[in-house]
Structures are given as structure tokens and as C-alpha cells.
């Protein structure tokens, strides 16, 4: 698993695999929206009815939520709460942690049920964990093989200055 300070890197191949798994979960769990967030609040992927949804804000608040409940868990001697569930009048949110580092969020309404979502999430989590393991291995390989090929190896002060103009 990735250490706390290594960057998360996403490649096209793994991204496609992740999207496929999320889309499958979306169908099988009869849910509305599914997204994956890094524990630091960066959105990794999203699928479903995301058009009217502020996914960036959702990602940041989800990570804050997991961080806060993780803090609570520690205080009472738990490692973490690996599943959170928030029930609303129409929509519900199911949040779970995958492989210790990534957060899976499923939003669903009365067309589905907590039981179904739980069941499908469990299966999808295992599959997603495999992809993230592959991703970690790939990142390590890339890092050791070709440090010079990083797209940022040659950025200049001018590149950076231009960002602010």
C-alpha cells in the first residue's frame, strides 16, 4: 500500500478499469451516483447522475467526514469506521473505505436498499482494491525506471509565472 506521502498517480488503463467497475456497481446496486475519492479529498472518478452535482465539493466533504469519524474511532480505541451511512428523506449516502486509502461513495434512493448496496459494494470493493494494488505497483515501477520522463521534470519558472497571468 502507498505510504502517506507518496503522490497518487492515475494512468489511463487503470482509470478505465475503475470506471467500468463503478458503472457495473451503479447498475447492480440500482444507485444514482457513485464516486471514488482519495482520502485527501481529491476526486478520482465519478459516474451516474453527476450533471447537477458539485463533485469537487462532495469529494472534499466526504474526505473530511471520513477523517473526522476516523478521529472519533481512534478516541474510542477503534482503528476506523470502515462504513458510514447517512439516511435522508429521499437520498441516502453509503460511504466505505477501500484498501485503507480510497473512499467509495454510493448515493441511492428508494429504488434501491441499504442491504443491496452493502452487498454490491462489498464485491466491488474487492475488485477495486485489486486495481489500486496494480496502480501502486505500476507507480513504483515508473518512478524507479524513468525519473526523467515525468511531465514536470522540465517545468520552468516561466511556466509557473504564466499560471498566474
Amino acid at each position: 500500500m502507498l505510504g502517506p506521502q507518496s503522490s497518487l498517480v492515475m494512468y489511463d488503463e487503470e482509470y478505465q478499469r475503475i470506471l467500468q467497475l463503478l458503472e457495473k456497481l451503479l447498475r447492480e446496486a440500482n444507485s444514482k451516483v457513485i464516486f471514488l475519492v482519495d482520502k485527501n479529498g481529491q476526486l478520482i472518478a465519478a459516474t451516474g447522475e453527476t450533471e447537477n452535482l458539485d463533485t469537487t465539493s462532495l469529494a472534499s466533504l466526504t474526505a473530511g467526514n471520513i477523517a473526522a469519524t476516523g478521529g472519533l474511532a481512534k478516541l474510542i480505541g477503534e482503528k476506523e469506521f470502515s462504513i458510514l451511512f447517512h439516511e435522508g428523506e429521499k437520498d441516502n449516502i453509503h460511504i466505505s473505505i477501500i484498501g485503507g486509502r480510497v473512499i467509495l461513495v454510493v448515493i441511492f434512493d428508494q429504488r434501491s436498499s441499504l442491504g443491496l448496496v452493502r452487498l454490491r459494494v462489498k464485491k466491488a470493493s474487492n475488485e477495486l482494491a485489486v486495481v489500486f494494488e496494480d496502480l501502486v505497483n505500476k507507480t513504483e515501477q515508473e518512478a524507479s525506471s524513468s525519473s526523467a520522463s515525468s511531465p514536470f521534470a522540465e517545468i520552468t519558472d516561466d511556466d509557473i509565472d504564466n499560471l498566474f497571468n
Partner: protein
Amino acid sequence: MSFINYASREINCKIVYYGPGLCGKTTNLQFIYNKTAEEAKGKMISLATETERTLFFDFLPLALGEIRGFKTRFHLYTVPGQVFYDASRKLILKGVDGVVFVADSQEERFDANIESLENLKDNLEEQGFDLEKLPFVIQYNKRDLPNVSSVEELSNLLNPRKVPELEGCAMTGEGVFETLKAVAKLVLNNLKKGG
């Protein structure tokens, strides 16, 4: 910790504004939010008390433009400065790529600045970070007020390593973008080294 996404050709970095209570962290983000074009910013989220004190964090996502074909996104966070919110501060520091320390230049906040900076070091250490190795800039805020310590005095005390330091008045925006730019520069330069 940055997130490099080759699939969407994006790079995400996390910057945290730290400092004692009422030093002007939230005001920095509000100014940036107000002066940034609609298409370059997301919603600013403030989890605050009824008296506008930060309770958990402020969050402002910015899209600054492209570098070498990669969209650069910065996620700005502020911590709650009040001493008793320490547990929350620790959480916000997770995965940080760069830190802005906002000091309150007022004489009576001298000790509060020191205490907050020590707290920052401790909390970073707990996460396995070393402030000395992290992109770090300092803003001396509230320069508009009459009862301020001299920049020299503040610098001697808070900035022995001589990281980039800037004078600011977050209320009018003076120094705010300069500060952001200074830390962004350090963060991006750090990426260059594969950080």
C-alpha cells in the same frame, strides 16, 4: 500529497493555510475566491461556527491553467486557528503539499504566532512530515493596523530558515495572491524533483 492523473491530464495539489485564531486565514481564501474568474474556481465551502470562526475547514478549489498539457488544480484549505480545535487541524494537514503560515502582526498576538507555529511543526511531525522539507511560506498579515510588530522582529522569530515571506493585508487583498503564488511555485518546483 499531489495527485497526478494521466487519464484526465490533471495535477492536483493541496495547500493548507495555518496560523493562530483570527489571523486572517479565511479572509485570504475569501479574497482569492472573490477575485478569481468564475471558470477558474469551484464553490468555496466554509464549515464555520455561527460567529464565523472556522470550525473544521474552509475549502476552495482553483484551476490555475495548464503546464505542459496538464491542468493544474490547487485545493486550498484553512485550519481552525483556535487552540482547542487541534484534533481537526491534524486531520486537515493529511496529504498536504504546501503550507502558508499566516501570522498576525499585532503585538498582542506575538505569543499566539509562536504557539501556532510550534503546533504546526508538532502536527506535521505526527503525520511524518518535516516542516523544513515542505514547501512553506509565511505571510505577515494585518500590516494595516497601528499596533504591529516590525517585519524584522517577526521574521527573526518566526522565520529563521528564511523561507519566502510576504507582508499582507488580507482584508484589502494586499499580498494575498503574492502569497499563493509563492507557495504554488515551491509546490510545483517540488514536483519537478518527483515529490
